[in-house]
């Protein structure tokens, strides 16, 4: 589903990713671990097409198509979703309205019928239960006055509503208490199936304990230096990263 080959990329002329290779197949959940500054978030920004990030060489393919020339919204419409590390506040824009606009944009892209307000409310109330969110958050502005945990739940709510093929979870576990972490992990786990893939970016093992990734990769200085299964996460927890550094 996602195929990254020899990716060199950075920002402001500074190279951050230095020859990264990663392949994620349908149905797999991959985790990327690494210190701050190792290039984890850069990778997420490159895949989603954020402005100002430059790719100097290498390819990123999604379902066989090169996506590097695609606009961020087209990548999203093709099925790439990112749960933001710092979800953005959009004052004045109603959360429900925003979500429906996003869903309808996707439905339209797929040449499907757009959903009306009443049907959407029914749909969203179902999804809301899955992330144990209070209905009051629907009538607020997007992420406005949300606690850290509610913002992250709102991201997962969006994921469950938009049903992307590839979900990138950028430090979705940061700033969460144990309950919120459990709810979010559950939300993701229930959403997993043989068609959907995930890329979880994290510092900590605790999210991985809940999500049980198929593969764990260690990112150091813009390259994946080691890949493995759950046991690798435990090893990292015990020994840190230094034993992997050259």
């Amino acid at each position: 589903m996602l195929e990254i080959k020899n990716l060199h990329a950075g920002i402001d002329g500074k190279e951050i990713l230095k020859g990264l290779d990663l392949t994620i197949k349908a149905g797999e959940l991959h985790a990327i671990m690494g210190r701050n500054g190792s290039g984890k978030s850069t990778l997420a920004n490159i895949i989603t097409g954020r402005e100002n990030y430059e790719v100097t060489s290498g390819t990123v393919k999604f379902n066989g198509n090169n996506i590097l020339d695609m606009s961020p919204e087209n990548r999203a419409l093709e099925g790439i979703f990112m749960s933001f590390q710092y979800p953005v506040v959009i004052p004045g824009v109603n959360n429900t309205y925003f979500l429906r606009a996003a869903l309808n944009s996707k439905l339209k892209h797929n040449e499907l019928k757009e959903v009306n307000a009443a049907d959407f409310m029914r749909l969203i109330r179902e999804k809301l239960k899955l992330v144990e969110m209070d209905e009051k958050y629907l009538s607020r502005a997007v992420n406005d006055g949300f606690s850290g945990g509610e913002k992250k739940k709102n991201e997962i709510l969006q994921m469950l509503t938009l049903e992307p093929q590839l979900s990138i979870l950028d430090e979705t576990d940061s700033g969460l208490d144990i309950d919120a972490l459990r709810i979010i992990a559950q939300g993701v786990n229930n959403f997993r199936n043989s068609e959907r893939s995930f890329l979880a970016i994290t510092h900590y093992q605790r999210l991985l304990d809940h999500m049980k990734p198929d593969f764990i990769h260690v990112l150091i200085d813009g390259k994946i230096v080691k890949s493995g299964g759950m046991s690798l996460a435990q090893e990292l927890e015990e020994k840190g990263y230094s034993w992997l550094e050259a």
Partner: protein
Amino acid sequence: MSKNTQIIDKAIEKEYEYGFTTDIEQETIAPGLNKDVIRLISSKKDEPQWLLDWRLKAYDQWLKMDEPDWSKLNFSQIDFQSISYYAAPKPKKKLSSLDEVDPELLDTYKKLGIPLEEQKMLANVAVDAVFDSVSVTTTFKEELQKHGVIFCSFSEAVKNHPNIIKKYLGSVVPTTDNYFAALNSAVFSDGSFVYIPKNVRCPMELSTYFRINAANTGQFERTLIVAEEQSHVSYLEGCTAPMRDENQLHAAVVELVAHKDAEIKYSTVQNWYPGNPKTGKGGIYNFVTKRGTCVGDNSKISWTQVETGSALTWKYPSCILKGDNSVGEFYSVALSNNFQQADTGTKMIHIGKNTKSTIISKGISAGKGQNTYRGGVKIMKAAENARNYSQCDSILIGEECGAHTFPYIDVRNPSAQMEHEASTSRIGEDQLFYCNQRGISTEDAVSMIVNGFCKEVFNELPMEFAVEAQKLMEVSLEGSVG
């Protein structure tokens, strides 16, 4: 070049939709201003002596006054002698019905989306159309007459209702009020007049469309609305102008009088030509004095304005809250895109007991636009238990624009309750990327964010015009993001 910048460039190239000129035989007097010009205007309108005297007195006062320089507006001096103070479409003969209005004129209004033929008219909206210096037609007159409502051009009102005009003209905005009000008093050519008798709820929205067409001509109209006891009226004005390289002056005066238990709702959708988006050349200089007095107890005056046009906007619709328990409201959306500058706000003068005012101002700056909110709240000594709530929000789009807020507060009675909130935000790259990442295009994201920002004000517009305002905002803004 980033994608967002490309979208801006595309949008900036978007042309002003109403920039056409009407090729019509015009009667225009030579540029320049002196007493003879004023006498000429007055005689063209066949005015009574008292009105000519009033004009000449205003002119004398204007000569002694200085152009105000306290605003944040930056522009080269206006040469008042290079402006023509009167332009009118030449009537083929005297008009007695709409059928006799020049088809060119009807066509102009049709292009503007304002059909004047009654059968095609907007449901339940009466329209007075002002073309350069004169009112061309007023619709629904008879229907309104049944209710005793007078809605006509100012010139007609001078002829047919001289006593009302004499009583109220200059009663809210005296000729000495300010430089541009004095100028208007001397040279005003036409405008609209509304009179709502006691206990009457005006059965439809009243609306005036102002159109500047002639080159090198100033437009100076006056509007007077009088609402007698326990009456109610909702009034809307719209404005457009052709694209021209020279700046054109628009200096209007609006006076509102609300008697006991009366309510006046005055809405403006201002879309004068804003000037060339790339060079800043041309565009309307909009210097307007709007004020209403809540004369009677429990009366209410509410201003709503959506200001998207003009090169310069200098405008402070105000309320004098004389009557006890009277209410003043000001809801404003002001947009400055490209080279536009707006210095706008309100004044709320609390005189009566338990008077209440609300100010909601939303400023949007994009391109190189500069947007200033300037508002004054004055609580006089006698105003026991006066209350004011002010909220001034600004939103910035791009790196080169500016937003400024100047609240003036003067409280002379200790029982007053004042609340003031202000915020400035920016449509950030992060917000746009967030929307993009959810499959929403940048243009849709900007319009979603701006409409969310303006919602409180749009909600105040009469239904028929709220959608129009929203669309206008989209056109004026589309892709102005960097």
